[in-house]
């Protein structure tokens, strides 16, 4: 065990969220009643804010290291065997922090902060809030752990702790039937996916003899091309795509998502849709770019992109006919996962027909940049839309679009934010969603895959139909009797929504800084820095 003071600074985001979960859990035991719930919620938000500061601090450390060209990954041995007994370089449990990890940590903690603030008011009629906030902090902390994991042991521990806390949060209202059934469905599929990941990784471990993610890639590259191990690696690849794809909600495996998102409390729907499923996309990106060279395995990029195209089409078609607002948003999440995975897949293609290695790398990181930026765009927009849907649910008590007709006239601020979020996801130019999709499309066009690009553009245009339909029903229809009774949303909930909306418009107007960071993250994951 040797953790110096400096290393603790690197670990602060983890310590503040997971340690905060412990403290908040103890506080929840002591403080009871509505006032206790509010106090616990505020303490949670403070921990999230501190974690956000620490991760921004980490961002500057990593950026400084990168601009000096010292290292893209800050290797950090938090735990290793005594020297001499064991080879540290190949087997130690590692936490590795690079720009991609910091970028995604900022995204996760940012949404976690606003969900914590939002839930103080939104969950006012629920009991057991002393358990809700620790679970939320554990969820955020484990997601940070997943993105900074440098070996499979660390990744798996945080992956499972993230999964378990999200199962519990989906079924938080355990006295109702719907959350329990949706949670059970989510649990069965997701736990199966975890075992598939473990099983696949056991074969990769057998092939390479190490659990270190970077070392697995290096050892795989040393194996002779065309050997018998290629079959095992291909099976492993399919297992990893399915295992992580269940979490990332790739189309044939996404049946849990449209049930779990509406059934969860709205803040948790925002968390699940905005960030939790993105860990699946992250794991696919990180593991496949590290493990499998596109020149040795030319096909997997194409297979993942076919999955992605199918995901987009499926999400769009299913979203068209939905009457439940949160279910509609859940299906549109599936569509957006399709865009993100598609950008990643273009980054994993061999692109041998282009010839020039420099151009190939440029195309790769361009489309991965688009996808990483779309993760931010989707986190802000969809997170905010789910929070708005939660406001409607809180004030009117229904998720039925027919009964929510014309509610925008009673809640003007919420409705303006809702419209901005929907237009952002539809890809209207000055908003953030436009730029991210633009980069994905640009990368795919440069890669010369015109048919897939056409499907992506058509799917994006198609999705405008249901976003506009939602806006039309919620603002421009005659108010229903339920909607007329609605009161204005409370300022606590509006605060989160308005801040997220400001970021949607602000980053849309000034995307340059965030695009630069996303670009650096994309280069870091491809090893181009």
């Amino acid at each position, binding site marked *: 065990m040797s953790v110096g003071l400096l290393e603790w600074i690197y670990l602060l985001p983890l310590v503040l969220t997971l340690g905060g979960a412990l403290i908040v859990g103890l506080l929840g035991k002591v403080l009871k009643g509505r006032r206790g719930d509010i106090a616990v919620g505020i303490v949670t938000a403070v921990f999230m804010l501190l974690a956000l500061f620490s991760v921004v601090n980490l961002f500057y450390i990593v950026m400084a290291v990168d601009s000096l060209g010292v290292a893209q990954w800050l290797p950090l041995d938090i735990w290793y065997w005594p020297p001499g007994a*064991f080879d540290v370089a190949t087997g130690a449990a590692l936490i590795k922090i690079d720009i991609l990890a910091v970028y995604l940590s900022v995204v996760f903690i940012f949404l976690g902060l606003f969900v914590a603030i939002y839930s103080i008011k939104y969950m006012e009629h629920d009991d057991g809030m002393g358990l809700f906030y620790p679970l939320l902090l554990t969820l955020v902390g484990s997601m940070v752990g997943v993105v900074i994991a440098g070996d499979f*042991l660390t990744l*798996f*521990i945080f992956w499972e702790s993230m999964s378990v806390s999200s199962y519990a949060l989906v079924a938080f209202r355990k006295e109702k039937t719907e959350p329990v059934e949706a*949670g059970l469905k989510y649990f069965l599929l997701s736990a199966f996916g975890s075992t598939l990941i473990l099983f696949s990784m056991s074969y990769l471990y057998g092939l390479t*003899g190490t659990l270190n993610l970077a070392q697995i890639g290096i050892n795989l590259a040393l194996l002779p091309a065309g050997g018998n191990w290629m079959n095992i690696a291909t099976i492993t690849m399919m297992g990893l795509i399915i295992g992580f794809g269940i979490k990332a909600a790739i189309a044939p495996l996404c049946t849990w998502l449209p*049930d779990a998102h509406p059934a969860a409390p709205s803040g948790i729907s925002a968390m699940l849709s905005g960030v939790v499923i993105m860990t699946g996309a992250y794991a696919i990106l990180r593991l496949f770019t590290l493990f499998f060279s596109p020149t040795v395995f030319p096909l997997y990029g194409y297979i993942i992109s076919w999955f992605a195209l199918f995901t987009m089409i499926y999400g769009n078609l299913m979203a068209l006919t939905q009457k439940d607002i949160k279910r509609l948003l859940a299906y549109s999440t599936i569509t957006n996962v399709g865009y993100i995975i598609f950008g990643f897949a273009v980054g994993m293609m061999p692109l041998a027909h282009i010839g020039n290695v420099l151009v190939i790398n440029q195309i790769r990181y361009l489309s991965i940049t688009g996808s990483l930026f779309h993760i931010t765009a989707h986190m802000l927009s969809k997170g905010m839309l789910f929070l708005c849907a939660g406001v409607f649910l809180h004030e009117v008590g229904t998720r039925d679009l027919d009964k929510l007709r014309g509610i925008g006239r009673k809640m003007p601020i919420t409705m303006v934010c809702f419209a901005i979020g929907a237009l952002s996801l539809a890809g209207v130019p000055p908003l953030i969603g436009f730029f991210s999709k633009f980069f994905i499309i640009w990368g795919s066009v440069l890669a010369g895959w015109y048919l897939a690009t056409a499907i992506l553009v058509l799917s994006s245009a198609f999705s405008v139909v249901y976003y506009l339909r939602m806006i039309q029903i919620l603002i421009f229809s005659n108010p229903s009797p339920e909607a007329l009774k609605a009161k204005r949303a409370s300022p606590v909930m509006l605060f989160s929504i308005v801040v997220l909306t400001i970021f949607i418009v602000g980053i849309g107007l000034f995307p340059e800084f965030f695009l630069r960071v996303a670009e650096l993250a994309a280069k870091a994951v491809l090893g181009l820095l």
Partner: protein
Amino acid sequence: MIPYLVPLEYFLLTAVFLYAIGFYIMATKRNMIKFIIGLELLLDGAHLNFVTFAAAWPGFVVDPLAQSLVIISICIGGGVIAVGLAFIIRAYNLRGSLDIRKLNELRH
């Protein structure tokens, strides 16, 4: 390499069998408790694979990291299955049955 009393392939085949049985249970059974048993078998298949490969580690020691992964994963699996059983108890109290097909609230 250390000569093994039992060839490595036997263990690997057993692991595949365990995984296949678990998958079969998850795919065909209706009883929710049997789902949990299937899940446990899936985990065991993966654990057996890890332990086998750790024993065949190049060098003269068994890979301690893979073994600690298995031990930690068994603990995590216990936690996951406890959460699953909690779900099943809730579903049983709400529906009065362990049949997964009786959970029909979500069919729109």
